[in-house]
């Protein structure tokens, strides 16, 4: 009986240890930083993490099929400048939104085709595609950011408030719900998971593993496109390097997520909690007056700590040919 409960405790810690860590971070800042617990500040934190949460969910979907997508940040920037250019040029904003999504999806599928058809490992393939996206972003803008007073309906997509909540929070919740539903309730989602968990076994069982990898990388691209639209609307501007900073933080959110809920595996709920931890740290450290380099150091420690817990899947994906 005693041994059983000990094992149960250990299993609980493995599943929820990092989530408890998130609660600890929350309690710590609530106690140490006087303005942390105000509703306004909590809304700020939730709003700020929406980009890395959505990008992280995309990255996690690709990683579910055991493929790395290191291009999502640059693809987001490219889709952002394309969307921004269209809105700025007075085109209907619906068209700009479609263009942003289409560019994200197209680059995701490009990643997928390079990986599945040309057999280039995703680590290399997506870095190359990242460079291509970066080139296009500068080609469109010449390095100048696109700024303006834009159609309020478009800006509402990023800055609006619905039911008292920042709209970004609702988009994030919608993306997470959609991804969870896809992975857990649909056959294609399960096949994506099988592809990442046991590619040979999945292929022998008749699962189209290459198509699943294409899909995983395509979805990551689509998440980048969606993020680009929210980013452009909420900043009312777009620059060819808008999203570069999200590469590390979004991946860190996924890695943190892999230490909980489904330990060792990329998962949506864990990614959300991981993003929340990163967001709380970024915000809380500023409230405490910590200088910028402390944030970088803490982020680095988080990545090392979470990878040390959940490295196996990532290395498998990174060096898989």
């Amino acid at each position, binding site marked *: 009986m005693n041994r059983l409960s000990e094992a149960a405790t250990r299993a609980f810690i493995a599943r929820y240890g990092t989530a408890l*860590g998130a609660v600890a971070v929350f309690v710590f800042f609530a106690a140490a930083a006087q303005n942390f617990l105000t509703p306004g500040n909590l809304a700020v934190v939730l709003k700020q993490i929406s980009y890395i949460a959505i990008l992280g969910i995309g990255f996690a979907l690709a990683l579910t099929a055991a493929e790395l997508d290191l291009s999502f940040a640059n693809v987001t920037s490219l889709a952002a400048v394309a969307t921004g250019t269209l809105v700025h040029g007075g085109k209907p904003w619906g068209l700009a939104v479609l263009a942003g999504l289409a560019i994200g999806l197209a680059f995701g599928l490009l990643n997928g085709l390079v990986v599945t058809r040309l057999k280039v490992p995703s680590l290399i393939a997506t870095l190359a595609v990242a460079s291509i996206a970066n080139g296009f972003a500068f080609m469109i803008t010449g390095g100048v950011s696109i700024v303006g007073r834009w159609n309020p309906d478009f800006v509402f997509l990023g800055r609006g408030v619905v039911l008292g909540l920042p709209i970004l929070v609702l988009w994030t919740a919608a993306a997470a719900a959609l991804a969870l539903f896809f992975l857990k309730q649909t056959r294609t989602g399960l096949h994506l998971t099988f592809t990442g968990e046991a590619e040979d076994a999945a292929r022998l069982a008749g699962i189209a593993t290459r198509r699943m990898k294409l899909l995983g990388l395509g979805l990551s691209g689509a998440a980048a496109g969606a993020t680009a639209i929210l980013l452009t609307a909420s900043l009312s501007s777009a620059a060819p*390097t808008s999203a570069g900073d999200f590469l590390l933080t979004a991946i860190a959110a996924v890695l943190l997520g892999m230490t909980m809920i489904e330990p060792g595996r990329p998962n949506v709920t864990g990614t959300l909690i991981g993003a929340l931890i990163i967001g709380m740290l970024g915000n809380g450290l500023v409230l405490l007056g910590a200088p910028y380099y402390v944030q970088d150091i803490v982020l680095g420690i988080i990545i090392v700590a979470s990878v040390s817990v959940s490295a196996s899947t990532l290395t498998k994906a990174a060096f898989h040919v």
Partner: protein
Amino acid sequence: MRTGLLIAATAAVLALAPDAHAMKLGIVAFQMSSETHARVANAAEAAAKQKGWEVTLLNSRGAMPEHAAQLENLISAKVDAILVAMGKPVETDAQLAQAKSAGIRVLTVMSGTSPHTLFDIQVNEYEVGAQAALYLLGQLNYQGGVLLSRFEGNVGTRIRGKVLDAVLSENTAVKILDSHGMARTASWRDDVKAGMSALLLKHQGKIDGIWASFDGQAFVIDDVLQGMGLAKGKLPLVSVDGGQEASARIRDKTSLMTATVAIPFERMGTAAVDALDRIVVQKKPKDDIVHGPYLFMGAVLVDASNVPAEGKWPW
């Protein structure tokens, strides 16, 4: 292991946690890895600490969403004032408006103006660009061929390039032999080195002068020229920014660096803190310091005739 790391991070944060009551200033530098941004931010931080203020120095790492997020976080932190170095007021209009309505005074350095901020401390980049361009043309006696090292990824360097184009369009005896547009990457030095080396070889013997959009590029070009065995005075090499290394190279007998337009980044940082001291602490009206949205500070052209000694500034 994980718990240990968490405790260590917690302890580090607690050790840094400040006491209340002092004037709280948040400084946001758009990109600390860029030397000019860091010079402004670090000088301002030092000046503010000397006044006994509580300072939070943040780095937006060159990313707009991070920049906006940090402004939001500082507003949440209820700082008394925010100083933005090389920021983007138009893109962060919503955050700056929020700061204003929260009663937080925002002062910017080399960022541009906004209805929600006090004013912007600037050097006039158009004037700076014109000084550098005209100096180079003077060195050439208004004729010959020049090589350009450009950078379109930054407002300041882009303006300098455009002003140079304008100056050259009025002085048609000076021809652009070639120009290299620097790529925006972490390894930009390699890019400048490779691009300019190729152009120097291609136009060997026909080059009368070299223009670089900022000093960092000029240093790389200087090293390439020295490596090719060229001696000081052989070719004028002119750029913009100014700083200890630029002065050192202008003094150096082996360097080809001829002149730079020194922008007083440190002085802009300290002037910003002084202005905030008068406006926020001493409650003086803003118009006591400057009328209008800009406080212009002068840039100084530095060449062999006025180069300051080591550790000194030309102003």
